[in-house]
């Protein structure tokens, strides 16, 4: 099932080249989604007979409260797989906003919520433009049978793309309903007042609810139109709900333990699945005997091509069954480079070789020059809820478009993409597949794909019953896609005044996000080149921006030291970008950088870094303490300033920034997948150490909340500067430069 298509792992090249003199920054509105693309999909090739699906046992499907908009999405939009990473506009106003007879207002979106707060943000956007209280809005997310395809929840695109689309629809809806209410009441629209979902004419105290107006036959045609994109939106200075603190709508259910995550879905007669995995990372199944599993009571076992799995009445029985099958399996394993060989291997297998510095002549003549290589390890997202899917095939003919042949509840950031994966794996029309994504237990870029959904569906097909497949933690560590490892070469030269003269940056294997230097350099270029990475890799929170910012900001520190300059002053002297300067100066001021860098204490150090990605700007100051006995780095204090434009929900933003900082501590200091003998050696939280309570520093977050620029997403960029700030602080404390993530001090 896991094809060893090493050569598939290519990208980068010319698109990432930045000529000298350019800002080297991409317009976020047209940024390519390089980090979103899974470079090596899991491939399934089932030997299917379409007729075999037709007669199956099964049960009904959860039908959402909202019937009307089902399947309202315009087909054929959104590109590959019929799913579409980017999505498209809602087909109609009615497909975006629904008024229930009971007074509920529902906004529908193809976005998902894995904890980042999109549900609340979209409720805010709708409430703001409809002029109703936040709590009046229900949000229906990510049910492909009901919602518009808003594209994948990735690339920090919900805030800059989906929020405006929802606001447009809500504002258009408000205008439409007010205009029609004016006709019904026989008054001028501007004589009407709006409050709490009621349209009121004060002189006669007559009022109509939105729902009463919306169900008017005369409006049907207008509600069937595509939402306009040029409606006037509520200006920031008049925001009542956007820009204010609002609690996550699902919070109460979560603290009560009532919220149903994908792994909490239970269907009548549901079985529990497990899939056979090879002990080595890449291996072909030579032979297997399913008999030991089939002898177990209630167990269904499937072999279909490379896919082998079981379904059983309990998780425990499924585990016993798959262990019995695993004992019979024979594998032909492939070699893989070990962790020690990895970075040489990536360099040796770089597509077209590693390009040379085009400024070599200038470097040779420069007053000072430096060259260094940085590396980052493969890491896993390790979301706390493992990948899970519940699949159910319809028995008999359909009674409603909401009950297609196959329904899958799963956690994915790309519901329409997963619908496409399922349709393709089972040779179904996309309309015959419905994917429902309950708010799930986090992803961080790790849940873009639908392999768990496909596997669950294959098991359910064989069992003729609904099947839940919940990956084990070991599968999470070995079978989910990884954040790619990187080898990054940087070389720069300084003129006689200590200013940057040339800059050259090459990323091998991990991608081009934030690769362009934001500093003013007459001659600068950066390149991203693919390689034959041995592990299946894909997206991760801010993906390559972390590796590229780690290399650039650490190297800026090396250059500052070479120039004999303070790291803050050196950056500011080479930086014109006003927004980046502003966050850097803000973080430094709040951290009291100047005092702390001078008043150095033994075994303590401070460092800083800044960067930008996806339209937002971030700077970080960090203080570390070195434990000389254990050779450990302890982060004591982090101060981050962040500019993502106008803030939508201040506390949710702080939560995201704090979370990014804490999550970023892991790959900075400890997280690393270890490869040896063709296998992942630390597929466990025991040996893959993510941040714990004891690792968490004091954190200060300052949001710039600029009102004069477009709002950018905020879930990713705050993670990209924590590692270089720590590395620079370690250098300040010890004089030792750490160029590999995770950063570890050598034994004394």
């Amino acid at each position, binding site marked *: 099932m896991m094809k060893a298509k090493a050569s598939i792992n290519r990208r980068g090249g010319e698109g990432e080249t930045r000529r000298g003199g350019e800002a080297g920054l991409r317009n976020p509105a047209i940024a390519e989604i390089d980090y979103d693309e899974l470079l090596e999909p899991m491939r399934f090739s089932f030997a299917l007979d379409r007729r075999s699906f037709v007669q199956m046992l099964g049960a009904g499907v959860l039908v959402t409260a909202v019937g009307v908009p089902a399947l309202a999405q315009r087909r054929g939009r959104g590109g590959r797989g019929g799913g579409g990473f980017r999505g498209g506009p809602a087909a109609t106003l009615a497909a975006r906003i629904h008024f229930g007879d009971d007074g509920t207002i529902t906004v529908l979106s193809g976005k998902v919520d894995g904890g980042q707060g999109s549900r609340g943000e979209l409720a805010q956007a709708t409430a703001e433009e409809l002029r109703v209280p936040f709590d009046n809005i229900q949000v229906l997310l990510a049910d492909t049978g009901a919602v518009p395809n808003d594209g994948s929840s990735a690339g920090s695109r919900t805030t800059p793309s989906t929020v405006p689309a929802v606001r447009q629809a809500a504002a258009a809806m408000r205008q439409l309903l007010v205009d029609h209410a004016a006709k019904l009441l026989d008054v001028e629209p501007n004589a009407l007042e709006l409050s709490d979902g009621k349209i009121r004419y004060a002189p006669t105290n007559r009022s109509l609810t939105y729902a009463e107006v919306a169900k008017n036959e005369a409006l049907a045609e207008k509600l069937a139109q595509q939402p306009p994109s040029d409606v006037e939106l509520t200006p920031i200075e008049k925001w009542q709900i956007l820009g204010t603190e609002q609690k996550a709508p699902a*919070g109460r259910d*979560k603290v009560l333990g009532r919220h149903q995550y994908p792994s909490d879905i239970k269907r009548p007669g549901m079985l529990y699945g497990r899939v056979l995995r090879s002990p080595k990372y890449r291996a072909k199944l030579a032979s297997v005997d399913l008999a030991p599993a089939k002898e177990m009571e209630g167990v269904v076992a499937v072999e279909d091509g490379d896919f082998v799995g079981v379904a059983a009445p309990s998780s425990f029985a499924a585990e016993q069954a798959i262990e019995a099958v695993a004992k019979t399996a024979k594998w032909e394993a492939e070699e893989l480079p070990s962790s020690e060989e990895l970075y040489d291997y990536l360099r040796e297998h770089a597509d077209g070789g590693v390009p040379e510095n085009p400024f070599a002549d200038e470097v040779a003549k420069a007053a000072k020059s430096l060259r260094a290589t940085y590396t980052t390890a493969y890491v896993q997202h390790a979301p706390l809820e493992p990948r899970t899917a519940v699949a159910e095939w319809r028995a008999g003919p359909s009674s409603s478009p909401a009950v297609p042949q196959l329904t899958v509840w799963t956690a994915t950031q790309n519901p329409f993409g997963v619908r496409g994966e399922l349709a393709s794996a089972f040779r179904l029309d996309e309309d015959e597949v419905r994917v429902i994504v309950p708010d799930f237990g986090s992803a961080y870029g790790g849940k873009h794909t639908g392999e768990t959904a496909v596997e669950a569906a294959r098991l359910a097909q064989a069992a003729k019953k609904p099947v839940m497949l919940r990956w084990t933690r070991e599968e999470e560590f070995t079978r989910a896609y990884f954040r790619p490892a990187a080898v990054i070469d940087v070389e720069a030269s300084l003129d006689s005044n200590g200013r940057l003269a040339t800059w050259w940056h090459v990323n091998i294997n991990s991608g081009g996000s934030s690769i362009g230097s934001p500093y003013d350099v007459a001659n600068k270029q950066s390149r991203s080149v693919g390689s034959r990475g041995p592990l299946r890799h894909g997206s991760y929170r801010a993906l390559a921006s972390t590796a590229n910012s780690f290399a650039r900001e650490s190297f800026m520190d090396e250059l500052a030291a070479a120039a004999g300059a303070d790291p803050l002053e050196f950056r500011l002297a080479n930086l014109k970008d006003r927004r980046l300067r502003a966050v850097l100066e803000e973080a430094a001021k709040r951290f009291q950088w100047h005092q702390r860098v001078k008043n150095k204490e033994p075994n303590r150090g401070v460092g800083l870094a800044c960067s930008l990605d996806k339209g937002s700007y971030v700077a970080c100051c960090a203080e570390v303490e070195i434990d000389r006995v254990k050779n450990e780095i302890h982060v004591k204090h982090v101060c981050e300033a962040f500019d993502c434009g106008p803030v939508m929900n201040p506390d949710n933003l702080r939560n995201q920034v704090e979370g990014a900082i804490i999550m970023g501590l892991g790959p900075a200091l400890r997280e690393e997948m270890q490869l040896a003998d063709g296998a992942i050696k630390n597929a466990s939280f025991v040996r893959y150490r993510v941040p714990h309570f004891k690792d968490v520093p004091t954190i200060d977050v300052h949001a710039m909340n600029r009102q004069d620029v477009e709002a950018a997403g905020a879930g990713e960029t705050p993670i990209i500067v924590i590692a270089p700030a720590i590395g620079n602080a370690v250098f300040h404390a010890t004089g030792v430069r750490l160029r590999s993530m995770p950063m570890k001090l050598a034994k004394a």
Partner: protein
Amino acid sequence: MQRTITFTVNGEPRSVTTDPARPLLDVLREDLGLIGAKFGCGERQCGACTVLVNGRPTFSCSTRVATVNNRTVETIEGLSDGEILHPLQEAFLAESAFQCGYCTTGMIMNALALLREKPKPTPDEIRSAMDRNMCRCGTHLRIMRAVESAAAGVEGGQQ
């Protein structure tokens, strides 16, 4: 090889006839429909499955159901008084001490055991006690604040 295991869950006597080697977590979730405790790792590392057994925080993913025979089990479902939240639940909501919330029920159950043993824990004691649970979203500081404010509330007679 089935066995009948009898125990108390949230004050109610329950009896299940099942393979005694099954994890308590599976029995709670798959047999008794109590989904509040979560599967996170199956290796006693993340604490998402935390329930209280005879008052002690316990990794239910790695506890054979047979070992709770004749014991009392408390899960998140038993914490609120109907719709009236426990002070810890109120505090987690007030501090927004979660993002995805998958770790939340285990965090609250662990904090409950802590506050019963030490009604006024110091910040260091909170950090140390909570360290057996993982949060991948990075809401640790909020969780510590929530536990602290719940402790203050309990002391102030809100419970």
